[in-house]
């Protein structure tokens, strides 16, 4: 490691390379602490920001995301031992969603993996992973480097996001496939674009060195002037995230290394991420434990719920009948686009495919008076909202 250790928590909080550009928009001063940085929770109005994600184009500062560069002759072997999925199948120039487990096969964190070449990967994660990644490097000819502070990130999401990038002059951007990676010259530097995001919509993530961050922001606003390019905060992104059916570390499950009680750790099977586990690729962290779990069956499943009525079921308990508790809700909203009352919940495996007989006990605060109400619910497929434009290639022009 050549970089100094990144400051985890310091007062005042760190600011991102886009801070000077975020601040003028943050009219209501709703700031949020994220990984030691101050970021915007809401600029002015959550509804406006949310509808901008679904109807125009939005910018969301993802710079606090931890970013690790993994490079060296053993990079692929290293990633394969780290991740539950087959890193060899992520070709250079492609990105992928991945989770990684501890020895017990419980998920430490999830994130996206970018593969730039045969020998270079980047791992993006919500939580700090330095120690785990460094210790995982023992015996492998790789360099693991925390490049969080060397790379600024902006999520450009929404149906008009491709249009904005075309206006910015990125040649051939419309032909980029989902989970593709491309690099463009930008102001004497390089702009890396990935067709990835957390909104379940058409969208891109833009990666640039901090010195060019403000210029990028300004150029994007010039390019997006006619397309109502809107900065959005974490609250609005979280709504889109739930509609997309994505789970979030420490919201829908606890990072394995941070739990106070080990029973709260979750395996990929328990998170319903079976498709991310590849037993045929050789050994990986947690493989032996996961093989045992495959035999015995997971204790829980993470599911999507469609809940009767319109009251968001945040923190609701899920019952079979009136008394037998079988799970709990971890994320829930009234989905403005799907026009459904949706939730992401953890259910005991035996009840995880119920389309009837499940009840949500929803807690409602009525002008300081807490009340509870029960609503029928059923397990449904995720995503809750899945527009064709999300995957269409070339990107649709609106």
């Amino acid at each position, binding site marked *: 490691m050549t970089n100094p250790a990144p400051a985890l928590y310091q007062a005042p909080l760190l600011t991102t390379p886009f801070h000077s550009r975020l601040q003028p928009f943050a009219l209501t001063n709703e700031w949020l602490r994220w990984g030691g940085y101050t970021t915007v929770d809401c600029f002015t109005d959550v509804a406006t920001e949310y509808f901008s994600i679904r109807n125009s184009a939005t910018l969301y500062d993802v710079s606090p995301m931890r970013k690790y560069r993994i490079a060296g002759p053993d990079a692929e072997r290293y990633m394969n031992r780290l991740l539950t999925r087959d890193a060899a199948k992520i070709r250079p120039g492609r990105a992928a969603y991945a989770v990684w487990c501890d020895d017990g096969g419980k998920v430490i964190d999830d994130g996206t993996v970018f593969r730039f070449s045969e020998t270079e990967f980047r791992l993006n994660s919500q939580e700090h992973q330095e120690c785990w990644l460094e*210790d995982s490097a*023992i015996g492998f000819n790789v360099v693991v480097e925390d490049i969080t502070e060397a790379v600024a990130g902006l999520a450009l999401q929404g149906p008009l996001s491709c249009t904005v990038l075309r206006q910015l002059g990125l040649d051939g951007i419309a032909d980029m496939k989902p989970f593709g990676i491309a690099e463009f010259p930008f102001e004497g530097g390089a702009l890396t674009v990935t067709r990835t995001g957390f909104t379940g919509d058409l969208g891109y993530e833009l990666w640039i060195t901090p010195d060019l961050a403000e210029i990028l922001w300004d150029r994007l606003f010039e390019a997006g002037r006619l397309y109502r390019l809107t900065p959005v905060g974490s609250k609005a992104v979280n709504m889109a995230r739930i509609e997309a059916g994505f789970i979030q570390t420490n919201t829908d499950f606890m990072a394995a290394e941070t739990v106070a009680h080990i029973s709260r750790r979750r395996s990929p099977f328990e998170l319903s991420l079976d498709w991310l586990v590849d037993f045929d690729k*050789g*050994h990986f962290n947690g493989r032996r434990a996961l093989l045992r779990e495959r035999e015995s069956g997971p204790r829980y499943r993470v599911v999507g719920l469609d809940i009767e009525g319109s009251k968001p079921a945040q923190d609701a308990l899920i019952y079979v009948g009136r008394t037998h508790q079988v799970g709990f809700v971890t994320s829930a909203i009234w989905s403005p686009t799907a026009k459904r009352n949706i939730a992401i919940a953890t259910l005991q495996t035996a009840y995880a495919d119920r389309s009837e007989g499940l009840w949500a006990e929803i807690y409602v605060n009525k002008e300081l008076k807490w009340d509870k109400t029960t609503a029928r619910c059923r397990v449904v497929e995720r995503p809750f909202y899945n527009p064709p434009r999300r995957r269409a290639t070339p990107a649709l022009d609106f």
Partner: protein
Amino acid sequence: MSASYDIIVVGGGHNGLTCAAYLAKAGRRVLVLEASDRLGGAAANRELAPGITGPGCAHVLHQLHPAVRNQLKLKKHGLKLVARQLPTVSLGQDGRHLTLTGKRIDGLGESGDREAWPALHRRLLRMAGALHPSLSQTAPRMGSGDWRDWLAFAKLGLRLKMLGKTDMREFLRIVNMNVFDLLNDELADERLKGALAFDAVLGSNFGPRSPGSVLTWLYRLAGDLGNSDGLAIPRGGMGEVAEAMANAARSFGAEIRTDARVRRVIVENDRACGVELDSGESVRAKLVISNADPKRTFLSLVGAEHLDTGFQRRLKAFRTNGIAAKLNLVLDGAPEFTGLDMALLGGRLILAPDMGYVERAFDHTKYGEYSVAPALEIIIPTLHDGGLAPVGRHVMSVVVHYAPYELKGGWEAGREGFADKVVETIATVAPKLPGQIVARQMLAPPDLEREFGMTGGHWHHGDLAVDQMLMLRPVPGFAQYASPVPGLYLCGAGTHPGGGVMGAAGMNAAKRILAREASS
């Protein structure tokens, strides 16, 4: 591709050979592969000069487990002792020495220790007796839910309870204490305390004032228990212990190859199924058992890609840096120690005149320096066994405390300077010695690492300390000789109960493997 075996044992150290012998005795087809040209590992002989044999590392036999000795019939297979019940002599720097022979103590002068020491000794032996049975058992697992593990814990607890209220209370009081405080509470004579404190820290990264040094002492005493020969010298040198074990193994049908260095353990479909040698030859077997230390086994022979990060992280934390150096001197005559009766010269000579001396010797290692006045354990095997050297020549084997694994400035530059210091130190009690030396050989921890393949050059394959003992050795969760890789087991000093020429780790491993493989 050569013939197939049931079991391959990687490494022909004394634990590997013991393990192989037990497994062969149980009818398994066993192959032992030893990298060097001789068996015994750190307990092997070494040619110091043409026609002169000395101990490579270990130089006195005192912990050989009676079960191993008897069940493998080591006597029948060639293990003969030329000396037993050696006295321990604490060398005083004024020529007044103190001698411990079993319970007897000579040279005390006017001191209350004449009564106090036997009382303390008896009490410590009672406590060591409660620990002793655990040495020849697989360490129980914590939280496994298996009744056998509960039983093992319960038995250990019961044995401590059976000590009686006074002793048990005393055990709990002193077990995590340092030996410096304990001995100052109990005894007065500095030479006595110095020698006892030296025993307590021998082979550990401890000084007398390090917490936990009472436990390491009790552990050593527990290892000595049940051994009716006391401190003993085998005929033909320490290497003959391993030879006898090898003969026993061969008599049960095991095959043993030397000059066969294992390059890697072959893992296929997540199961160890053989080894590949440096020569390129590969040998298949149903099980692979490694006598190599845990770090070498997993990080070099198996490889990180077959291990989980958490396991590797715990393995990384296993402390393996050696602390003792080995100096072998070839002398042109028997040495003379000022004031020491020739009859005692063949004893185990300790140069640790007081506890402060040992502590000061330890201080240096904390800062990457060797001790400028090291504490020493000296054995002159040629006094007992004329076959080891031509008439008139003698070998002085010295275990030197302390020598850090990583020396400031490096061992290449420091090795001979350290040897000079050791010789100077011995000369304070044997002034004529420097003129008698015709050859010398200094093995610092990195040399021991290179010579015997022990990571860090630690003769126990890793510190013996409370956090690396029993169910925590080598790492929590894998203290039952098994490894995370199916088909791969450990049997070396890095497993419970640790090093010392005891053979218990090899014996326990063999029994555990037979029980497990029978049930699976």
